[in-house]
Every structure is written in C-alpha cells, then in structure tokens.
C-alpha cells in the first residue's frame, strides 16, 4: 500500500535557503514529501493551520519571533507536531535550549550534498514516528495570550469568547488586528485589559462576524504589552475556575500521589558519589506537581515553575523517543543525583511531580 505523503514545512528567513534546500529534499524524498516553505513565523503559522503539517524544520535566528520563541509557541499550540531545528549556529547553549523547548532534533546546516542526504534521512525517520497522547504526548494548555498572539501572527479573523463565573466578553480580531473588545459595560482597551487580566475561565474561538462598533486601533503587540503592564500593576487576581494557578498549600501526603514515597527512596541502594559524605541528610528544597495540561497543581518553594514544567515536558518527549523500539515500557520516573542535591521527577498519566532535595551533612 502506498505510504501517505508527509507534509514538511521549512521555516527560514533566508530566501536562498528556501529555494535551494526544499528542492534538494524533494529530490531525495522522490515524491514522499509535500514541501512548504515560510519566510517568517506568521507565514509558518498560517500554513500549519491550513495544511496539517507533519514536520516543521526551522532556523533559530529569525527576526521578530525567533526560532526559540517559535518552538515554545508550537509546543503549546501543536504539541504533537514534530519539530526540528536546522541552523548554522550549532552552539551547545542553543542546542540545549532548543531541545528543552520541544525540538526533536537539533541539526547543523551542512556544507555538502552528501551531508544533506544524511539530514534528509534523519528527518525522514522522524516523519515515521507517531506521537502518543496524554502527558507522554506532551499536552500543554494554551494560554489566552498565546492564542491571541497566534491568531494575530497568522492574520486570522476570529472572535475570541472568554467566560468566567462573573463575566463574559469577546475580543474581535480582523485579519490579525484586534479591532474591538467588550465585557459587561466595558468596551475598547479597557475591556481588553480587563479580559486579559482574568486568571480563570474558559475561552473559545468563534467564526468572525463584524462587530457593531470598532473601539480599538492600537497594534496587538502594544495591546498585549499594555495588558501585561496593567495586570502587573493590579497585582494577582484570584483564579475563579480551572486556569493555571497555584493550589493552596496542601500537604503532598493528602494529595494521593502514591508513587512519591517510592520515588523518594531513590538511590539509597546505590553507592554514594565519589565526593559525597556518608552522613548526608536530604532536605526537601522544592516541590512542583503539574497537571497533564501543564497547570501547576501544587508548588512549594519553586522559583521558576515554567522551567520545571518545560523540563517535565522535555522528559516526557525524550523518554518516548528513548524507548522507541526497545522493550522498556513507559517511563515511571527519572532520578538525578549530585553531590549537593537530588531530583526526582515522576510522570503519570494525569500529573507529573518534580521534587528537589538538598543534601546536608
């Protein structure tokens, strides 16, 4: 049976690259790939939305929204989309940053045709890989700001309806421009800032219809920055429904995470590290429990919850790749031990746990 043609998108701000490389890849693929190209993130998002892309190959250095930011956006909105970075800057710091943001591969642009064939083969292997669902498929809730950014970058026309227990409002986007917002008696930027300041609630995208009035003329970038400023000045707003937030300080023992005690025993059966003293005592320094969507369910002394959630997502993705073709079963946890600290991460179907302990003599 003939294999389904894979849809591959190359994103690079260099038009010469976009002319030459897809042609080369097309020759290697021999009709197995349908190749699209985009010069910037806006174009790329529109193509991803329209064509159900299987694989995105993107550059790191691009103007306005660079490859790193784009990776983060894609990981949130299209968690199952396979992403590869192909760059001329193969520095270790970029490599680690891209992999931790959801890139499956970090490849350097080669200089000769033979090496390009290797690139093609690596990409071809990836297109055969089918991601799973659940936490192991790296599902993450997309925030209101992300959706707005996506819709504007993609130059879409849509109505974003936002509802909480207390209020219901809409933001109108026409060809990627925010033209109107209303909630209760508020309209215009006042309504937009109010809606963006809500930390709880649900939102959904509706087909565009012309509003009765146009009350906003500022750019979406300015509006988002201004909304962030207003939100910061107003201070934290209590969550009203299920949006990401921080749960009250409930002891972990009351939260039913049965696997944790088992995980905390880790490495006690193995020899200490070379520079580790015998009389060390672990003290819990940081705890984070995340839902499958990337919401913080519980956190204690966690300075950067987003970084921890990104790491859990990275582990989820990497463990799937790691066990591919091997009879290993699903990942239950990862344990990391240093001379001064230990870390345990545990991935379950509906939540993930991150615990860091400091080791003191």
């Amino acid at each position, binding site marked *: 049976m003939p294999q389904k043609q894979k849809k591959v998108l190359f994103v690079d701000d260099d038009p010469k690259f976009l002319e030459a490389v897809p042609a080369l890849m097309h020759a290697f693929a021999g009709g197995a790939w349908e190749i699209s190209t985009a010069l910037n993130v806006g174009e790329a998002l529109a193509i991803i939305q329209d064509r159900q892309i299987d694989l995105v190959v993107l550059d790191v250095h691009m103007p306005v929204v660079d490859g790193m930011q784009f990776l983060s956006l894609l990981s949130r909105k299209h968690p199952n989309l396979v992403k590869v970075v192909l760059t001329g800057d193969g520095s*270790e*710091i970029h*490599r*680690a*940053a891209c*992999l*931790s943001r959801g890139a499956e591969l*970090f490849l350097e642009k080669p200089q000769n045709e033979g090496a390009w064939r290797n690139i093609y083969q690596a990409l071809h292997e990836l297109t055969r890989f089918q991601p799973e669902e659940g936490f192991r498929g790296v599902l993450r809730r997309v925030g209101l700001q992300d959706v707005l950014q996506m819709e504007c970058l993609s130059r879409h026309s849509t109505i974003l309806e936002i509802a909480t227990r207390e209020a219901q409002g809409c933001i109108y986007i026409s060809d990627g421009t925010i033209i109107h917002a209303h909630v209760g008696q508020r309209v215009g930027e006042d309504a937009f800032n109010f809606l963006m300041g809500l930390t709880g609630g649900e939102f959904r995208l509706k087909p565009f219809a012309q509003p009765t009035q146009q009350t906003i003329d500022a750019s979406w970038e300015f509006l988002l920055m201004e909304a962030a400023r207003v939100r910061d000045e107003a201070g934290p707003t209590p969550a009203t429904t299920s949006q990401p937030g921080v749960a009250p300080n409930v002891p972990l023992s009351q939260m039913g995470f049965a696997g944790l005690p088992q995980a905390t025993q*880790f*490495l006690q*059966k*193995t*020899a200490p*590290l*070379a520079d580790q003293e015998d009389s060390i005592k672990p003290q819990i320094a940081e705890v984070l429990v995340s839902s499958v969507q990337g919401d913080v369910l519980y956190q204690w002394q966690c300075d950067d919850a987003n*970084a921890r959630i990104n*790491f859990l997502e*990275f582990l989820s993705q*990497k*463990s799937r*790749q*790691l*066990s*591919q*073709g*091997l*009879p*290993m*079963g*699903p*990942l*239950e*946890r*990862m*344990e*990391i*031990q*240093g*001379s*001064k*600290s230990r*870390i345990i991460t545990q991935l379950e179907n509906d939540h993930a746990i991150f615990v860091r302990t400091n080791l003191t003599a």
Partner: protein
Amino acid sequence: MNPTIQQWITDNARITGVLAFGLHGSDKSSFTFSCHPSFSAEALENAWRCVAETIPVLQLNRFPTARFRWVFKEVVLHCERRRDGMCLGIFAKNDAQLFDANELDRLLMEFHGL
C-alpha cells in the same frame, strides 16, 4: 572512544540482568553494546543519542549530571558521568531479583577507576 572502557564493557556483557551498555565521550563520540537480542543496534543507538541530548538540558537547568537514571516499567537505565565528561549507561532489568544492585555498585566504581 576509549578502547580500555570498550574492552571493559565487553568483559562485563554477561552479567545477569544487564541488557546493554552505552558510552558517551566529552568529544561527543559514542559507543553502544547490546547484550540482549531484544536490544537492536539501531534502537539502542537511538536511545543512547537521546541520553546524550539530555545531558546539556540537565546542565541548562543547572541540575547535576554526575548520576541520573531513567526508571522505565521494565528497564532501568543507569547513567554515570565522570569528571572528564565520559558518560556510561547501563540498561538493566527493573527487577531486583534479576539484576543485583551490588553488581551495579561494582560496575560504577570500576568505571570511575578506568
């Protein structure tokens, strides 16, 4: 890749419960060795590449990299990284009856001495 360590891996390939080994050098060179037919060379190389990619991400997050292990339902992948950056991976059965923890300690200790 260090031939002494490769030979050491070959010498320890018959330990009960050990399924495969991986070795990653600070110069990015890699070596894998399968001790079980269910661990194909291709899949093992892919798995070991994933481990190599994890190290810089751990460093980026300022996590230790001296010792980490992936606990899968059926297999535990023990990774030990020396001060010179050489990283050893031991794929072993996740069953205390089938893989002796004392053997693991011995292997890790010997690895540091090689």
